[in-house]
């Protein structure tokens, strides 16, 4: 058969699939930029403790609010600490906490959404109303309450952030499931007598996975912003651990004469968020979930 040569696309290993997706993402300028920023931040998070030129918690009153120089590249803050050192270290906690937070959000939000989409009826109604109710609570207030009751340790922050950011994923996963369950292959699986679990695992997840992963990637960047807001309000990372939100909060009063202390963490935070957003967009396009199809002319 001649067709064989064209359709040589055989079943690929997960690794081959992933590398293909990454190559497709990088083939677009926006995807390449996003990926590079994200990879840069991740590498930085790993190696920053070893390359930091100064001690991040060394307070020196004689060096208070120094302008950027050859010794202190980004200047120093109001306690005389090196801003460059603190900036490159400042993303570590945020990245770790929000990464695991988004994983938790993806897991519970995705599974609950798929389950609700599949079973429908009363269970779906009740669960979705509860989710709606949570959506109407300002999350930052609820977070403040949780943090003030349970403390600001990582064990509290990760599940709490994961919970609050998973609500949106429930809706997305449920909508994606609704698209799939009307298809005949689900009817066919039902008619054969497969269990709900088997239908979710074999038939639905492979078809909604992409949409949920993309949504999760977007949530990651939002969660990063949320976490930094907590730090900014003083409920995130506790000093002296360097953190962008905290650094912005500390330096913002001195912005008019020591702008460097506030600009450096802002650049760090916003570049990471932009990087994640661009990557998520490129990821969606590489998976074929393109939301910007052109209308016919």
């Amino acid at each position, binding site marked *: 058969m*001649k*067709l*064989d*040569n*064209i*359709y040589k*696309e*055989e*079943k690929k290993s997960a690794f081959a699939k992933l590398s293909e997706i990454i190559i497709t993402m990088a083939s677009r300028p926006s995807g390449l930029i996003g990926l590079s920023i994200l990879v840069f931040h991740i590498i930085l998070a790993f190696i920053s403790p070893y390359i930091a030129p100064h001690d991040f918690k060394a307070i020196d009153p004689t060096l208070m609010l120094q302008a950027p120089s050859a010794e202190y590249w980004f200047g120093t803050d109001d306690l005389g600490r090196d801003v460059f050192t603190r900036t490159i270290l400042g993303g570590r906690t945020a990245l770790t906490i929000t990464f695991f937070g988004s994983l938790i959000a993806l897991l519970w939000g995705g599974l609950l959404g798929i389950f609700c989409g599949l079973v429908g009826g009363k269970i779906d109604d009740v669960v979705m109303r509860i989710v709606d109710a949570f959506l109407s609570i300002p999350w930052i207030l609820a977070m403040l309450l949780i943090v003030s009751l349970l403390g600001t340790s990582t064990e509290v922050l990760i599940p709490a952030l994961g919970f609050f950011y998973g609500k949106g994923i429930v809706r997305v996963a449920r909508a994606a499931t609704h698209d799939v369950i009307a*298809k*005949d*292959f689900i*009817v*066919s*699986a*039902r*008619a*054969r*007598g*497969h269990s709900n679990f*088997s239908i979710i695992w*074999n*038939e639905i997840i*492979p*078809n909604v996975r992409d949409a949920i992963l993309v949504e999760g990637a977007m949530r990651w960047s939002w969660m990063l912003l949320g976490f930094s807001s907590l730090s900014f309000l003083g409920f995130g990372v506790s000093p002296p651990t360097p953190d962008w939100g905290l650094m912005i909060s500390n330096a913002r009063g001195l912005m008019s004469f020591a702008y460097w202390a506030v600009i450096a963490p802002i650049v760090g935070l916003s570049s990471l968020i932009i990087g994640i957003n661009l990557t998520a967009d490129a990821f969606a396009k590489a998976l074929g979930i393109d939301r910007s199809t*052109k209308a*016919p*002319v």
Partner: protein
Amino acid sequence: MTDIIQKVKNLSIGFRSKKGEEILILKNISTNIKKGETVGIVGESGSGKSTLALAMMGYVKHGLYTIEGECQFNSSNLLKMKSKDLEKIRGRKIAMIPQNAGQALTPNLKIGYQIDEALQLHSDLNEKEREKKISELLNKVRLPSPETIALRYPHELSGGQQQRVAVAMALAGTPDLLLLDEPTTGLDVTTQAHVLELLNFIAKDTGTSMVYVSHDLGAIAQVSDRIIVMYSGEIVLEGPSRDILKRPIHPYTHGLLKSIPKLSLAGLPESMPGSQPQPGTIQSGCSFFDRCNFSDENCKNNSPKLEFLKDLNTSVRCFNYEKLVNESQASQTVNKIKNKSQDKEILNLSEVSISYAKQKLLDQIFNRISDDNPTVKDININIKKGETIALVGESGSGKSTILKSIAGLLRTKDGLIRFDENRNLSSDLKERDPNDLRIIQLIFQNPDESLNPNHTVEEIIAQPLKLYFGLKGEELKKNIVDLLQKVRLGEFYTSRYPRQLSGGEKQRVAVARAFAAKPDIILCDEVTSALDVSVQAAVLNLLQQLKEDFGTTYIFVSHDLAVVRAISDRVAVLYQGRLCEVGPSNDVYKFPSHPYTEVLLGAVLEPDPDIKPKLVAEDIVEERPPEKGCSFQGRCSRIVGDICKKEIPPWQLTDSGNAIRCHIPIKELQKEQF
């Protein structure tokens, strides 16, 4: 030459693949459309017929581009025109009627408003004149009481009426050329015949040229003066429609006509091997080479040119057409199917009613359904082991609903479904045990939807094997390969995804999955209607072969009476969820028959210009079955009187064992209406 209104010259359209190769969708097409002529463009999906039709109004789909050639309309090339100039031509000079009028009409605007919009754009009439013109147009497309139709919204009309509105809108600009892209494909048989008849009338009445694009040779035969047959982006045959249908001199058309089931012939038609090549895969030689029965070495290496034969007034792209010229008519041979049914009864439906009515709170508490006029009512059918019984009817006749109930996807309201005389299957999925589910398997209409796109063929077929028989490892693999061979697919298909298969191959995988459960009964829901004509016969033949090998019973649902004629032993005709006629298929297709069967049979379109459809009943669509009396009273042209409106007609038996439910005595029914 002034009578040519559209001239397509050396047109090639294609796209660039990821590797940068130029892949052609249309290859060097040249043809002319004359004034007042109706040209049918026929081909399988992917043959480029729609791309050609769209190019004729200066539109090239996103992602495709014109490689060379032009489409001349009034001696200006549409493909190079600016969009400002195109606007003046589209709608005014060239109008398009889309396939799905329901989607083409704006849902939130009244019909009259939408037609008025077209009139404002394409004519210089003032308000009063436009008002008159709207009812005139609606009258012309034979919509009842135009004044009320104009005030309705698209969703308030039936499919056929929506299509008529689309025709009226297209006529608003009094175009010189009408492009019709599969305008009747989604419609019911009777509606389809009516719409085609209307199009014929309009072509004669207004003198508009039409280009009719369809995969359905039956429809094309009814409307066109000239036929263009396309195959993988090329014109392979072009000529007067009668000659092409009566004496097809290209092997593709020849095979195609042979593979279409006909009403007049019981039995399965010959199938054509293979499927159409994907664009860009043919490097040298004739594109039809590997499916052709008449090919030789020459065809493999050289591609034939389109040759004009003066004495036949036909253009053909084939080296060996002479072999076919002498064959007077595509003589059709069919494999008569043997009735393999045994006396043993396998499935019995007695007094089955099914309702879609929503349960009220009280009904939910008592777990009952109260609906006096359910969607499906009084279904009594005995199905014998090994037979193929077909349920036919238009959309809304309840045929798929009955299938769903048998499969357990839908609860019955009343009545019993019994398997093997003693097992009760009236319950739904949750209450059936795995073995009850195994014995009944489903094959769906559209294999694109029934196969999980993220599973390989192996995973798809493994599902029932793992579920019902708990197979693992080597044994599982062996069974999968076995099943694939039974549906004539090789072992190398196991690692492919559905998107890498052609339509016919996908349906074969679906068939293999159904047979994997070793079922006693297979429910086939319109299994061939999503397939190309040339593939349809192959799938039907495969189903028949498997049935003979395994002794399976088929319940076959279809709206296509010719397909049903080809494969079934017994036919049950349904209207509005009520049985009209049940009997051996040979007898159902002969007189005497129920008035509704007569309507259905009359509306079948055959690829033969001499057989015209008979339009007996109006193509009204009824929303709900009537509460009292005969289900067909609303459309019947042979109503005997009040009795039809009050009493449910009795079953009458003919000599040949055919049961008809009608108040008209058998002897009366025997008389043909025409």
